[in-house]
């Protein structure tokens, strides 16, 4: 009877977390992805770079994914995909078209033996060894808040807003073109670079007062000889779009509080004691400090007073935030869970689709009755 499987560590299983902007690739039972690459492929016909998210039709997405998965296996993983399992970490909000097309490509084009699909918010908690937390994932396209209680995502309480790297890029673009007249259509890669290397999330107190000394300007080299002035004001206000309330009075901090309002009153306390921030955007300098400030100040609002919350506690991941979900996939994929819960090729050939997240119940049920809760 195999109790410990020393062989399982030798078996190479790819773990893939395909984000809108970046894809995290690595193998199970490793603690960091081997590569973080852009989720894009070079179109062979036009020789232009195309994002996976730019697909025009299901067939188009299929062909983009065929090229993308090819690069994953033959450029990075260096193993043949055929007859091997694969672990996919995906958001609970992943569009059906995307996950079904990915499954089709993996099963029919690359003939993987099975796919283990893991919900990103849930498995991200694996590296903390906790099973109750308010998981806040701020990525490129959107910010998604998912309360997870006893290993169970509270489906009715999730919140999502298009607040992430993309919103910051757009905001930065308009700030820069205001400050540098005649500057239009800055490519997104430049915006991203300015964001990463020059900008930060400022303190809440500085956004209110008028007479503050802005941080030093940055001369950003652009198009060879030209320079682009990134003013101190631009540097510290680029991320404000995430914290400013929109027309419906929604922003990052209200999302978290609104999610709390939708959760059973008895669970709220432990959720506020376990806020877990993941996703690349949360790695920005000052992001967490500001979010905490915003949360505490929002609590004074009438609508949130009834929550009766005094404080928030934040987790620090034993990894970089942008691959926290991937790491969860690596941990789960290293266990027997892979053999127990993966969708097999036979199942797929018979059913022609993946089981929906209804099967999440299996994941959850398993967690509850096998006593992980007790163990932790």
């Amino acid at each position, binding site marked *: 009877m195999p109790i410990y499987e020393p062989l399982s560590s030798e078996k190479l299983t790819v773990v893939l977390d395909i984000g809108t902007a970046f894809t995290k690739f690595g193998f199970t039972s490793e603690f960091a992805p081997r590569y973080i690459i852009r989720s894009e492929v070079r179109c062979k016909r036009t020789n232009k770079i195309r994002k996976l998210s730019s697909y025009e039709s299901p067939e188009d997405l299929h062909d983009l994914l065929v090229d993308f998965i090819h690069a994953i296996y033959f450029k990075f993983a260096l193993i043949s995909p055929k007859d091997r399992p694969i672990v996919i970490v995906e958001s609970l909000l992943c569009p059906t078209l995307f996950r079904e097309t990915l499954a089709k490509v993996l099963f029919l084009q690359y003939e993987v033996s099975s796919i283990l699909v893991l919900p990103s918010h849930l498995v991200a908690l694996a590296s903390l060894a906790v099973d109750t937390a308010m998981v806040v994932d701020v990525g490129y396209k959107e910010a998604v808040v998912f309360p997870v209680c006893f290993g169970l995502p509270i489906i009715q309480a999730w919140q999502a807003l298009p607040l992430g790297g993309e919103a910051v890029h757009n905001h930065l673009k308009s700030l820069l073109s205001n400050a540098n007249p005649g500057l239009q259509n800055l490519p997104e890669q430049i915006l991203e670079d300015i964001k990463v290397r020059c900008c930060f999330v400022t303190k809440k107190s500085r956004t209110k007062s008028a007479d503050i000394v802005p941080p030093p300007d940055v001369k*950003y080299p652009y198009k060879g000889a030209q320079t682009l002035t990134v003013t101190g004001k631009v540097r510290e206000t680029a991320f404000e779009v995430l914290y400013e309330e929109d027309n419906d009075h929604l922003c990052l901090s209200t999302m978290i509080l609104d999610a709390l309002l939708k959760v059973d009153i008895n669970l709220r306390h432990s959720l506020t004691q376990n806020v877990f921030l993941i996703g690349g955007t949360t790695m920005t300098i000052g992001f967490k400090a500001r979010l905490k400030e915003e949360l505490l100040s929002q609590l004074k609002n009438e609508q949130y007073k009834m929550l009766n919350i005094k404080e928030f506690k934040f987790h620090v991941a034993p990894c970089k935030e942008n691959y926290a979900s991937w790491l969860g996939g690596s941990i789960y994929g290293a266990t027997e869970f892979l053999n127990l819960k993966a969708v097999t090729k036979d199942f797929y050939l018979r059913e022609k689709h993946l089981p929906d997240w209804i099967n999440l119940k299996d994941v959850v049920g398993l967690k509850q009755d096998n006593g992980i809760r007790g163990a932790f």
Partner: protein
Amino acid sequence: MSYITGPEVVSYACTCGLLKPIPQLYFCRHCSQLRCGFCVCHEVDSIFCGKCSENIPSAEARVKKNRCASCFNCPSCHQELSTRIATKGPVVNPEDAKQPSPHKKTYYLSCYFCRWNSRDVGIPDQGSATGAWPERENVHAHRLQEIMDTYKQVMMSQKQQKENDKKKQRGKFVSFTDRTGVTSSAIRKRIGLPDIPHAMLKKPNPPEPAVAKLEVEELPDSLFTDPVNLLEITTIEQRHLQPETQAATVDMLFPIHKQLSIKRSLRCRRCEHNVSKPEYNPNSVKFKIQLFAYYHIPEVRIVTVEPLRAGKTCELILKFTNPTQHETTIAIKYVDLEQQATYVEEQKLSDVIEVLEQLSLQQPTSLPSLSGSQPSSLLSLTPRQPSITVKPRKINEEVNCDVAIPDSSFILPPRDDAAEYDDSTDTHNIEDDPKLVKWRKSNKAFIKLQVTPMAHLEVGKEVICGFTMQHIYTNVIATTIENKLPQKYEHNVRVFLRLGNVVGQE
């Protein structure tokens, strides 16, 4: 060479329905069908380092995380790093001054492209060229290992529990005195004793859950006053090259072991034969098996075309080349796209039936839960599963020009490499239709075709015409095995030509 890299002027329709120029196609001799990169099965053949050209067995590559132990890339610009010698003078040490100390060579890594070097980031010089450059370790490794072990164990006991449940469901008698750890633990649970783990299942202490803190990383105040030096801050690409550390400043960048490369072999999905297999030696660009379509299918090139005018017939001259050692006869036929579309539909249906048949065949041999219940050691030994063929798709090309189908066919003699250098002996007793064949030389023929761009085309529109090229293919594999005469059969390829744009009236 421009036809290899340039625009796809002449494209052939692969069996899967994709259009590709002939250098990108393969010809499976066993199925006598065209194949392309999209519809064959790709496999990793051998792994090597592109810099030191060393072959690395897959087990070793796995241990080294697909990276070369001795070659490094620049963490700043990702070019290859060079090892440079830094000769230190004789060590003048008063105590052992009697012994003439030899020149001590030390080495450091340097990038010729961006001038990054290992000394900048404080990596000490090494005593040997392949020196044991320091590796960074994941500071969280210990805790993560603990967590992973616990997860593995919990899932394993879950699996055993499930298997036990299954046994019970089958109505088999389960003896509680059974000496397996699981059942004794079941008794203990039943009678309310604390569960003592099986001796083999040595339980590591379950890791403490992480504790969240009130404090978060504060924004450093220096950020508001200190000027930014962009050269010191890493770009997102540089950070992502080292996912574990993602250093924010350049002084934290460490050299990166070079990623290994692979040679791929390609396999026909229908018959499982290789259509391409490279030689093992990383320095060799040759192949053991190379069933490129270029060696089997006549090549078509455009020689000239008269100015294209909507609704006007013009002359198109094509060059056909026979790449094989066998004479072939080529006939030009109508390109029937509807027929291809029906073929695609038929394949869809037959595929469903095939899958169902395959499943019913597989069922008795495999357990209901399949690989799930097999130990992984067996899993790795499972034989290669039959391939799933890629479903053909409809040819997606807007043909907007009619081709007058010639009444006769023409012959192409076999390729003769010697004849290439010989201008005099161009004698062949082939009776050609002068309306069709304009000129011929050795294995090539220049063919006249009448094409008519459709009347409704506007000026500037690209004209695309297509025809089915039927050629006699001589298959030699059977001859070598069974000593039979070479088999000849007709093979059809749909060829599409981009002739250029419609011009205005004279």
